[in-house]
């Protein structure tokens, strides 16, 4: 049964309990594809939930919106579908699976089922791994520019990169969180940060 057929049958079934055991088995197999019902094209619903959870741990909702509020998952799905090459997409999805494997090993649960503290612990571990890889690059490369070299083969680095890009370039992230203006009121080469911040919240 192909995806289109499965979706069609699902849509026409009055209720799930009326569906045949055969259909239900097929649907379980097609779970990644059923995820597209959320409008996503690469992430299945579980992967989507994991991505959303990690993104929201990085940038939670405070007095301004968080990563989930601005739909970071949709941007990540777009990149996975249309921007990453196969190798990168696989690395990212493998990385997501690895997050669950870590959670499973540590607490016998999937990442999204873990407590915030358990999740945070996994994030810290992944961060440590990312820094190690960055340092390795720093040692071997001829020269780099910017604060740190980019371990862009590391899942956590990829995830952070996409999360921050999606959040801070979103309408809410740029204007509400960072207070950026396309056309500044009063351009100033050497302004007081405090005063500028206060002027904006006034």
């Amino acid at each position, binding site marked *: 049964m192909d995806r289109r057929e499965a979706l069609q049958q699902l849509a026409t079934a009055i209720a799930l309990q009326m569906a045949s055991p055969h259909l239900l088995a097929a649907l379980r197999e097609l779970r990644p594809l059923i995820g597209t019902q959320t409008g996503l094209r690469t992430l299945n619903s579980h992967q989507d939930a994991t991505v959303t959870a990690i993104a929201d741990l990085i940038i939670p909702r405070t007095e301004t919106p968080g990563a989930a509020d601005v739909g970071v998952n949709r941007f990540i799905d777009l990149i996975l579908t249309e921007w990453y090459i196969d190798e990168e997409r696989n690395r990212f999805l493998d990385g997501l699976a690895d997050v669950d494997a870590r959670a499973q090993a540590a607490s016998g649960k999937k990442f999204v089922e873990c407590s915030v503290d358990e999740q945070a612990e996994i994030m810290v571990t992944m961060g440590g791994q990312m820094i190690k890889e960055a340092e390795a690059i720093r040692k071997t490369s001829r020269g780099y520019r910017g604060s740190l070299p980019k371990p862009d083969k590391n899942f956590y680095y990829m995830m952070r990169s996409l999360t921050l890009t999606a959040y801070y370039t979103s309408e809410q992230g740029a204007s509400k*969180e960072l207070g950026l203006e396309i056309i500044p009121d009063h351009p100033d080469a050497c302004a007081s940060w405090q005063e500028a911040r206060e002027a904006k919240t006034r």
Partner: protein
Amino acid sequence: MKTETVYDAIVVGSGMTGGWAAKELTEKGLKTLVLEAGRAIEPERDYVEHVPASEVKFRGMRDRSRMQENQPIQSLCYACDEWSAKFFVNDKENPYTTEPGKPFRWIRGRQVGGRSIVWGRQVYRWSDLDFEANLRQGIGIDWPIRYADLAPWYDHVEDFIGISGEALGLPQLPDSRFLPPMQLNCAEKVVRDAIAKNFRGERVLTIGRTAVLTRPHGGRAACHYCGPCERGCITRSYFSSVNATLPAAQMTGRMTLRPNSIVHSVTFDPGTRRATGVLVIDAKTRTTLEFKGKVIFLCASALESVRILFNSSTPELSNGLANSSGELGHNLMDHIKGGGATAVIPGNEDRITIGRRPNGIYVPRFRNLTTKHPGFIRGYGYEGGAHREGWERGVSQTGFGVEFKKLMRQPGQWRFSFLGYGECLPKHANYVELDKEKVDAWGVPVLKVHCVWGGNELAMRKDMSIAAAEMLVAAGARDIQPFIDDDPPGFSVHEMGTARMGRDPKTSVLNSYNQAHDVKNLFITDGGAMVSASCVNPSLTYMALTARACDYAVQQMKKGEL
């Protein structure tokens, strides 16, 4: 199809120099046809400088697969981004070739305005240090002009385009007629002061001299600091031909601007030894048209103008029109870049910049002025500047959560960069020719580019890195990272020299007024005319040469000499 109209002048190209030729020739009374290979540009529709990242599909990460497919070369240029990619050519439609292992990056714009829409806007006068260098060092040939010949034309161009900058009175970098300068930010002032103190006038840091208005000028508004000029400017605050020269030409009522007109070749009458017009391929219908003109100005860029002349070969002139010297296509130069350093400037943590200044710093040439550098001749200048790091720094950090979010809201460190741009020596062995095996999407034979850096350029690039680090040390910078990148020729997008000026028709293509030695009514005023490269950005000089050549051409026409 033939048209009976004979234009007083035909200008090929509508960019930096084509716009100037159009303006000057029409203002002097000439009925002028301006031919542009690319499409028309309507600022209200095509400019996208105020479109936020949230409204472009990949949020500034670019449409990667489409770019790899259609613009693998163009997208190497920083300005060819998700907003401005439309101002760069499709590489599949516009191929060129190189030898294996000898890359040349040819960044091109085919639309009304050409590359003047996306240029870097830095403008610097040449000095006699530049004009006399070839003669003094016995390299290439001597320039047929000196600073005094061009100075009034620099004035003329600057008065129209509007240049902001700081007067310094340096002999190696004559001052322009400046509008008020843009401001250095706090970290740049720290570096400027440290350089002044430690290098005692030998090295100077100043604000970039830029063709961006700091007050209203000639009916155009002052810059509003939105930042990305290369996406267009609805207030016309930076100079481009679309923003300034073409509207001026239009106002005369004497310009006919024809987009989608790919000039294949110049037609030539062997009896009169004069050009008679141009053959054009209509980019949309692919039909061939002929236009007649009394004088032809090639302003299509150093490489495109030469390509047209090669494609104008006749059985008699088998190596191209205006090429009795054999120098056409040779002596190709660019500016070498890729050497510099970046660092963190401590202090001023409570200060930020508001707005996006579309300009950086400049350090004028300081090598081989009064002392002699052991490793190379001529010199380089630095562009660059400081900014406070933004949220991008957070990607490679490990933090997350409320505290991390709070931290990202605060500006990061002041990061400063020096990026060197160095003079390239003219060499006969760096050249372009027609590739007989390949044509573009319109069937026009393409160029094969042969260009490599020489030892002098490579030694200079190394020094850019060292000298930049020295200044950062003097400024008390932290985390100083010198770099030497392997940028190939062409990447500064300052290609020039392929139809050089000179006094002797045996060794040069053009005379001292950009007039072809071999064809009196043919002028080339783009980068092709350059005899040497200096280390400063060349557009201002191209524009001044164009205005000067137009003045001469009209005088000669009046005398009946063309």
